[in-house]
């Protein structure tokens, strides 16, 4: 390939955090060639610095780093780190971008990441990755799982670069990789589209000087605290305080640092993620030290996301955890102890000053550094808050055609939203560049697979520390020593993080060097990591089915963290079982199954229509089925958004586009009768307008929406002047006299949710109330509006409207669940009684109208679709995605995707983003000619088959039939139809039919290894 070819691609992604990474993978998997550029020395962004992620407390690096490796192994992704964009010329479809790569002073091609230069370097610096809480060297690797895994030299501190002295590292490097004369390198690339995913920076509390940050050693930011919690952090996972390295027994968290403020230097918006991450930090800190006392000083608790309410309750229920609703000031640092005092006030106790060992500032999210320069380079507009200005109907579009935006540059977003918008950007790029798809694509090439059939068994066992996730509980050296004594094991070794590029490479090197022909990795879960390590085997020329995972994290260290000895014993048993099984593994080949390039979308609301239109625009045929007689869904009842955009013209336009699109077939009055098949090849029977029709499709997108709860409380249904927010909105638009002429209105929040039977927050109602209150105030500035709420959850950029409402004299009265308001009829209106938490007495309000924020509840259609498509719903009845953080629009069932309020209540723009995300993911399959099916399918040993037919009646896929053989009738499996469930195995009386990879022999070996004779 010549250099001109090298510089031509389809898409440039600026920012290699989780959003950029996801977009790169989605784009590369749907036929585009991607440049993934990051200005830091490695991929990963902020997510790589986090310890765990809420609300599942998954290890952040553990779930992100496999994606680094996936990017680095993908032939259609070129990773360019330590590089910034200088300028952009051209237009959508034809951009010329000039970039400059900063000198690393290291040749990326020559550096092996061995770290010898780091050992020799005499200059100690504060480690930027660890938030300057620990030391590193002037030459170092950004972090241990970094991609690319090469060092870089810090020019500010390197003695040679500063003063022309030293050069010790140059002599120490065995591969001559160090080049201290390297110069910046400017180059140009050509792409059709650009995605901006530069992420965010954290609010710097040093600038304003309040809260003592930078002056008091034991005041840290929440990002500092993430590093402190982390096994690879400054204190190797021990929670210690910076002043003296002692365990803090009393920690305070201060919420909204830099957020929700009108004072200069602060942000007027809510940072959307801090409530949940602080709760996570409390849970984790308590996990490290169960007797630690935690205090969270907060404003509203904004647990508005999926499962956040339960997560908050989990933190709140821990012993010695206090949530205190109070503004605070940091008092003083106590000279002798370096403890810090905090002044706060509560209703019961007035103003108090209390001492803490350590204080964590929950800092908010700022736009990326130098955002104005960035905007100028790309020619895009910013909002007042300096986030990317986007199309109100499509938050992934910037003000410039062909340039898209994903992740927290849109405004404060959490990880799943960053991932969703990344997949959504893939969908929009796919729409823009659909004619270029596959043109620049390259295939991945693996080494030739080694035939090991004649070799004796040589099992290699690798035991992973997973940082401290496993290593802190399980005695790894002991497990390795034990593993080496097991039958057929020829080598056993360790890994700090098996999933880092370096260590994955160590495994593939060991396979070659030690001549291993089976590999057992004792580490984490095959659910997230098996594909990576199977790939590692392929890299070493070993059949991927020779890989066996022993899960000693989820099945052992995480659940037995308090019983280290027993956990070590159990880890040995798990390894023993896996080694026994590995001895029975056979090499298998996978199948390529053709893909039907048609999509089925269920649900004709905004989510379903948006997904349909995008996929159709990308060139794929779409069948859109809707149970009602027309498209539109819930959006038909929405008229304006809180930002003031009109919904109905947008909806009418969308409906028209969908009906008119030649690639979209709309079936209304539709009921799905039956779904069969699998990814790439589904068949669905639909009754629409009395006719039964059948559609063959490769993917399914479920957008079945949600419903509004019908309140039974607060006189709803008894008086026509008690309305839901949706009903109010309709009446405002209709100019209903009772509504527009009302003199006093009381709104009650959280009706039907955040309670025992519906233990979740409906997310949208606070904004809905504010939106309608502002509208009413606009119509009649004299109207008195009182909003009775529990926590105002106007998260993210919506916070400004909450403030505007307060400025316009909308009154806010907080209530506790045990002191719910009482609504009684009084004259022509109502008397609403509510306890006043501040004054401690009952307040009586008069109201002409009472408006209820009725919960958003899962639709019946979602329950039905769940059964038909074999996908699950969460305990609240919303769809359960495959992975909360990183696969937010996938189901665990391959080829089925979800979007919209069927997933969880959400705003219109969020629904549009998610629908595009689902479309992007779905096109990842539709754009392929084939999907790969597992090699783990059934086969028949004909000499044992007695042709009883037990297997044939057991198989619902019709994969087994009788064939005539010289020895008579025998069962035969059609491997493409077999899905590997193995039901037939349990029915066969002669063990003639067997499921490859899970044979009786392998399973019996595992059972026997679990229960050795000494135990019997």
């Amino acid at each position, binding site marked *: 390939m010549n250099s001109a070819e090298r510089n031509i691609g389809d898409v440039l992604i600026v920012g290699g955090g989780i959003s950029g990474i996801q977009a790169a993978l989605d784009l590369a998997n749907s036929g585009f060639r991607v440049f993934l550029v990051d200005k830091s020395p490695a991929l990963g962004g902020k997510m790589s610095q986090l310890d765990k992620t809420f609300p599942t407390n998954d290890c952040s690096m553990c779930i992100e780093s496999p994606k680094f490796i996936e990017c680095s192994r993908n032939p259609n992704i070129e990773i360019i780190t330590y590089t910034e964009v200088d300028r952009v010329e051209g237009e959508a479809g034809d951009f010329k971008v000039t970039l400059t790569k900063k000198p690393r002073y290291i040749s990326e091609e020559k550096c092996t990441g061995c770290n010898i230069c780091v050992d020799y370097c005499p200059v100690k610096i504060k480690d930027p990755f660890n938030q300057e809480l620990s030391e590193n060297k002037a030459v170092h690797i950004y972090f241990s799982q970094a991609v690319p895994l090469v060092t870089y030299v810090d020019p500010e501190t390197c003695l040679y670069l500063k003063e022309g002295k030293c050069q010790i590292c140059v002599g120490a490097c065995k591969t001559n990789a160090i080049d201290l004369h390297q110069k910046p390198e400017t180059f140009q690339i050509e792409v059709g589209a650009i995605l901006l995913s530069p992420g965010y920076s954290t609010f710097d509390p040093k600038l304003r000087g309040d809260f003592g940050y930078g002056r008091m050693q034991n005041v840290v930011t929440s990002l500092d605290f993430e590093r402190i919690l982390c096994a690879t952090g400054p204190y190797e996972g021990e929670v210690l305080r910076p002043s003296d390295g002692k365990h803090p027994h009393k920690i305070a968290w201060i919420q909204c640092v830099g957020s929700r403020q009108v004072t200069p230097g602060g942000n007027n918006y809510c940072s959307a993620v801090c409530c949940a991450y602080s709760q996570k930090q409390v849970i984790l800190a308590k996990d490290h030290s169960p007797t630690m006392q935690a205090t969270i000083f907060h404003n509203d608790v904004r647990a508005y996301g999926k499962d956040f309410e339960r997560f908050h309750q989990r933190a709140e229920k821990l012993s010695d955890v206090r949530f205190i609703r109070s503004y605070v000031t940091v008092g003083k640092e106590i000279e002798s102890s370096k403890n810090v005092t905090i002044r706060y006030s509560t209703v019961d106790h007035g103003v108090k000053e209390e001492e803490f060992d350590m204080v964590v500032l929950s800092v908010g999210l700022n736009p990326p550094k130098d955002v104005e320069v960035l905007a100028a380079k790309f020619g895009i507009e910013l909002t007042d808050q300096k986030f990317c200005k986007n199309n109100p109907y499509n938050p992934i579009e910037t003000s410039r055609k062909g340039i898209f935006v994903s992740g927290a540059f849109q405004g404060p977003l959490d990880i799943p939203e960053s991932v969703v918008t990344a997949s959504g950007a893939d969908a929009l790029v796919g729409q823009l560049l659909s004619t270029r798809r596959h043109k620049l694509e390259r295939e991945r090439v693996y080494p030739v697979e080694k035939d090991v059939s004649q070799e004796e068994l040589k099992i290699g066992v690798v035991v992973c520390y997973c940082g401290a996730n496993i290593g802190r509980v399980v005695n790894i050296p002991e497990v390795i020593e034990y593993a080496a004594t097991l039958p057929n094991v020829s080598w056993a070794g360790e890994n700090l993080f098996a999933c880092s590029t370096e260590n994955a490479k160590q495994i593939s090197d060991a396979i070659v060097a030690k001549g291993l022909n089976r590999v057992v990795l004792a580490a984490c879960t095959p659910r997230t990591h098996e594909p990576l390590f199977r790939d590692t085997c392929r890299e070493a020329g070993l059949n991927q089915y020779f890989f066996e995972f022993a899960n000693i994290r989820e099945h052992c260290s995480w*659940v037995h963290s308090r019983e280290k000895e027993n956990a070590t014993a159990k880890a040995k048993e798990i390894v023993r079982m896996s080694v026994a099984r590995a001895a029975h593994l056979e090499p298998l080949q996978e199948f390529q199954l053709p893909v039907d390039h048609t999509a089925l979308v269920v649900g004709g609301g905004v989510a379903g229509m948006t997904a349909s239109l995008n996929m159709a625009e990308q060139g794929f045929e779409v069948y859109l089925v809707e149970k009602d007689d027309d498209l539109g869904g819930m959006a038909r009842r929405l008229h304006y958004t809180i930002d003031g955009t009109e919904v109905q013209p947008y909806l009418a336009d969308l409906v028209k586009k969908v009906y008119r699109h030649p690639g979209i077939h709309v079936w209304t009055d539709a009921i799905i009768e039956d779904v*069969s098949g699998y990814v790439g090849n589904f068949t669905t029977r639909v009754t629409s307008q009395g006719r039964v029709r059948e559609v063959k499709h490769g993917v399914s997108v479920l957008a079945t929406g949600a419903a509004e709860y019908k309140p039974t409380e607060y006189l709803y249904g008894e008086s026509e002047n008690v309305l839901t927010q949706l009903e109010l909105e309709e009446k405002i638009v209709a100019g209903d006299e009772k509504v527009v002429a009302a003199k006093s209105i009381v709104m009650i929040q959280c009706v039907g949710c955040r309670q025992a039977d519906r233990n979740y927050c409906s997310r949208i109602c606070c904004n809905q109330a504010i939106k309608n209150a502002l509208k009413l105030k606009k119509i009649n500035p004299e109207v008195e509006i009182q909003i009775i709420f529990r926590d105002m959850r106007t998260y993210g950029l919506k916070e400004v409207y909450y403030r505007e409402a307060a400025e316009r004299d909308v009154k806010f009265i907080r209530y506790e669940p045990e002191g719910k308001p009482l609504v009684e009829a009084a004259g022509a209106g109502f008397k609403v009684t509510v306890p006043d938490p501040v004054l401690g007495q009952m307040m009586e309000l008069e109201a002409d109208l009472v408006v209820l924020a009725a919960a958003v509840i899962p639709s019946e259609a979602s329950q039905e679709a769940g*059964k038909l498509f*074999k996908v*699950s719903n*969460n*305990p609240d009845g919303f769809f*359960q995605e495959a992975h909360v953080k990183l696969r937010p629009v996938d189901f*665990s*069932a391959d080829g089925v995707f979800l979007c919209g309020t069927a997933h969880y209540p959400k705003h219109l723009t969020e629904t549009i983003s998610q629908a595009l995300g689902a479309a992007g993911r779905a096109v990842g399959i539709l754009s392929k000619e084939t999907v790969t099916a597992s090699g*783990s399918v059934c086969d028949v040993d004909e000499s044992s088959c007695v042709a*009883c037919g*037990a297997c044939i*009646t*057991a*198989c*619902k*896929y019709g994969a087994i039939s009788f064939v005539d053989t010289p020895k008579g009738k025998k069962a035969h499996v059609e491997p493409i139809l077999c*899905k*590997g*469930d*193995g*039901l037939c*195995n*349990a*029915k*066969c*009386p*002669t*063990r003639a039919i067997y*499921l490859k990879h*899970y044979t*009786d022999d392998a*399973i*019996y070996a595992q*059972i*026997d290894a*679990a*229960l050795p*004779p000494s*135990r*019997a």
Partner: protein
Amino acid sequence: MCTGRVDIGFVLRAFQKGADGVFIGGCWPGECHYVTEGNYDVLKNAHIAKKILETLGINPNRLRLEWISASEGMRYAEVMNDFGRVLKELGPLGKGEGIDPSALAIRLEAANRLVPYVKLVERERLRQRFKTEEEYAEFFASDELKRIFEDLVVDKLAVSQMTLLLRDNPLTSAEIAKALDLEPADVSRHLKDSSRKGLVRYDEGEKRYALAI
């Protein structure tokens, strides 16, 4: 792979190797990830395995089948803790039931050898498919099932144990009854039947029964 892949043989093998309990965790009925609803197959197999355990004198509660979805980590922990408690109360396998180790070994081996036959019985006589767990429970508690099981499995199990016992040395009918904890009348019936089929023979010299081959 589906829970329906769990062979009755796997369960018996685990007990044979000394497990005090066997736990099978599957997807909730109606939430099968395949189209096969294989969790109903494991439900039936678990019922059959429990019946066999009962016949062997082993407490069937040592086998537990529970539905736990991937999102129910807490439930999984609760179920496992509870199962652990139940097993501790039952005591070690065999000891808790008052069966001596050699008799236990013979019983489980006999059952294990019968697995292919049990699969045939399942195919020929127990292929009923029900919609709910209750219906399965009801069916497996019914007289009809009891009759099928007694007719087709119980005797076979006894004979299987007898042949295993006689493998080592010839024994009298009374010795067999004692070793296997069976009714002497049943033992005589099985011996007569097995002699007729040519499986065992009466050794006139030793005055004992021995294997025919």
